[in-house]
């Protein structure tokens, strides 16, 4: 397969994640969308490295770092969601509108 095919796959995955972020009410569902977008980026890293003959280990290490950071991000995000749930009795993103003008 070609590089373009993988890039299109990643783009599709990213767009689906974006849709989830934009359309869903549930904070956890939004978090799911973010994770999808992160994985799309990971696919891009590996694909570029695979086809463009760059530094072999570099992309893998970047992907590992992204996965690690995503784990940290998910832990914090879920903690915040739990806290918000306790405060608002809801995890609907529309309920968090305290910053409106």
């Amino acid at each position: 397969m070609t590089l373009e095919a993988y890039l299109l796959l990643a783009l599709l995955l990213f767009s689906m994640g974006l849709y989830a972020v934009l359309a869903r009410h549930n904070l956890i569902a939004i978090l799911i969308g973010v994770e999808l977008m992160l994985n799309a980026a990971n696919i891009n890293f590996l694909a570029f490295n695979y086809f463009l003959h760059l530094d072999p280990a570099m992309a893998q290490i970047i992907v590992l770092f992204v996965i690690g950071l995503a784990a940290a991000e998910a832990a914090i995000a879920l903690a915040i969601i739990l806290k918000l749930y306790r405060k608002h009795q809801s995890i609907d993103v529309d309920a968090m509108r305290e910053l409106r003008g």
Partner: protein
Amino acid sequence: MNIAFTLPFAVIVIGAFLAVTRSNILHAVFGLAISLVGVAGAFLALGSPFTAVMEVLIYVGGIAVTMIFAVMLSSVSSPAERGGFLRKSLAALVAGLFLAGGSLIIVNADFGAGNHLSTDAWSIQAVGRDLLDRFNLAFESLSLVLLLAIVGAIVIVRREPVLPADQDDAPEEEAA
């Protein structure tokens, strides 16, 4: 069509579709897990078994499970999807435009890509050596970030000690 590409492709798309459309949040998390297994397959096809294993271990084994926990702790009931259609179609429009624009760029761009790399070049040894040598600082920083994230998560969700006279905290107690 190449099975090493089409199979992960199908799994990713089906999983992601489930993840973004199911209104039951548990189903969505399962969809995410399926999609991530597909991503791991794509990693494998891109010649990196190590990251594929890590993907499954951390994402499917770690993050997805944590999400399920969170869903269960927040007594699941997903919010009613109000005002559904307009919101969804607008989101789909934006995402679709983004997809279209991106595809156009990708199709028209010339990346100068040649044959793919021989997979022998990226051994796990090379990754391990680089991780602890060239990227040692980043690696150690990441471990620190993870530690802080864990501690931070605990601090954030920790319940404030409830004073007996304090009536405001009572609803929170019921909620848990």
